[in-house]
């Protein structure tokens, strides 16, 4: 203890800071950084969990490049991203924009939209899976039948399955985005609107000249947040197609499901690690492009 007493105040503070950080720094080193390096390392190896690890250089990446399933999965993943993000952004903005203008039972309406965000993706994937079944089981087809409309194949069709899986994913995230948009709308100073009113400006001009430009930080946040979510989609897809993971002819399989199957069904650890490195790279590139595009000017 005398050692501690002899330190200067500044040195004591430094000692305290590193005492506080000791456990967390170990945690981030062992649980985050070491595994990151390890994943990259494994991606250059051939390993089935039981046998020995052998170095294979870029073989896993070459195999991925020549794997038609990977390209199907790649296209699917970007379909989730390119349909999911704009659609959920547009829907949540329109709802938040109008919800912001209502006083009567405002918090009740807001609650209705927010509730799905509090559900678990697995539970809701099973609910939607039930909705999508054919007659006499599924709700949607039962409703269509009651109206005398032809049945729709949802999950068993190569064209409908992906949108059918995407719908609950969009639905579940909408409430969060609406709440964030509404907070963003509230943060816009009312004086801007007052000035616009005095100038007699129409609502469209107000929307495009005041509201949207001032919402830019909120929009950036939602776009980045939701596109990362769609690129990493897994829970919904896995649970809606467990009998045939990834849907008919891999029509709904996203990259994370391919990673899961390669690693924990086929135990091809090196190949799976290479896929995770690709996922990491895609996430990084997409986020950087979005930040660049949305933050410029």
């Amino acid at each position: 203890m005398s050692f501690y007493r002899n330190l200067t105040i500044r040195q004591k503070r430094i000692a305290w800071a590193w005492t506080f950080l000791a456990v967390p720094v170990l945690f981030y080193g062992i649980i985050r950084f070491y595994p990151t390096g390890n994943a990259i390392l494994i991606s250059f190896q051939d390993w089935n969990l039981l046998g020995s690890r052998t170095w294979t250089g870029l073989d896993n990446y070459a195999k991925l490049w020549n794997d038609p399933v990977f390209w199907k999965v790649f296209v699917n993943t970007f379909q989730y991203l390119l349909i999911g993000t704009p659609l959920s952004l547009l829907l949540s903005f329109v709802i938040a924009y109008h919800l912001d203008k209502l006083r009567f039972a405002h918090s009740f309406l807001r609650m209705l939209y927010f509730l799905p965000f509090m559900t678990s993706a697995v539970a809701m994937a099973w609910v939607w899976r039930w909705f999508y079944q054919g007659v006499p089981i599924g709700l949607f087809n039962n409703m269509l039948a009651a109206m005398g409309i032809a049945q729709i194949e949802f999950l068993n069709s190569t064209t409908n399955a992906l949108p059918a899986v995407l719908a609950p994913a969009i639905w579940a995230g909408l409430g969060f985005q609406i709440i964030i948009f509404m907070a963003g709308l509230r943060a816009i100073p009312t004086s801007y609107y007052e000035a616009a009113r005095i100038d007699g400006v129409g609502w469209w001009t107000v929307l495009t000249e005041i509201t949207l430009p001032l919402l830019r930080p909120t929009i950036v946040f939602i776009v980045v947040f939701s596109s990362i979510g769609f690129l990493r989609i897994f829970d919904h897809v896995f649970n809606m197609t467990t009998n045939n993971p990834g849907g008919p002819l891999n029509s709904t399989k996203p990259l994370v499901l391919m990673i899961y199957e390669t690693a924990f069904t086929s135990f091809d650890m090196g190949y799976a690690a290479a896929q995770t490195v690709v996922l990491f790279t895609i996430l990084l590139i997409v986020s950087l492009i979005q930040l660049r595009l949305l933050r410029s000017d």
Partner: protein
Amino acid sequence: MAVTEVPGPVRPTSEALLAKPTGRGPRDNAQIIRWLILFAGGILMVMPIAYMISTSLKWPHEVYNVNLIPEEPTLENYTYVLEDGRFYGWFVNSLVIATLTTVSNLLFDSLVGYTLCKFRFPGRTLVFIAILSTLMIPTEMLVIPWYLMSQQFGWLDSYWGIMFPGLMTAFGVFLMKQFFESVPDDFIEAARIDGLNEFQIWWEVAMPLVRPALAALAIFVFLGNWTAFLWPLIVTNSVEMYTLPVGLSGFGDEADVAWELIMTGAAISTIPTLVVFLIFQRFIIRGVVMAGLKG
């Protein structure tokens, strides 16, 4: 005594500000139509949840009836599913894991956030950037190494194995650091003069001042762990160690399980969070906004 809501400061909506002072007229009709459309949309949003709960209360012969209200509501499905015992165990697992992870995150994330915010020491910027940079690493990339670690250290199929990756989060550190910025340095200096040690200052002076941020973080971490699926699916092997989402996923796949029982299982894993939300609605929404905007 009737409980009345204390009205907050009324902020005029942008609509009200833009409205021409014409009194009653087409604007009111527009407002009503807008309200009705938004209400209809809101009802559509909760439909899947409503059908889940309604079906969990139906007898098997009524499941395929599209009516939302069961003709003879029954708790038979709940009795059946809970008597089976597995759901009860999964529920307990999820509760313990989500609670412990939340406590760990609240303690460590705020300790690190506080230290990075209120101490000047060599290596500070490096530590901050290093922790933030982990936000860019997707968990999917880490699951294979985590699995190998768990295998080597005997963590597979244990609470510790399910929990260890999520004990601290960079998002939480960042959120707490932002909020500790609002704690005046004078408070901390005053506490030092009063003879509190640095640990006491963090725990007794700074922590109480950032309670709203702690609440926001708690909601996010708890909900995230309650619904987590990929890692628990990988790290657990035995049915007893499953969390609710993993258990439900396998339960739905059993050949002899009927839809009303799957809906009951789904309801069991969803209703607790919905109830908590309905009670603490105001705080949860505020917390989500705080965490979302700061994050």
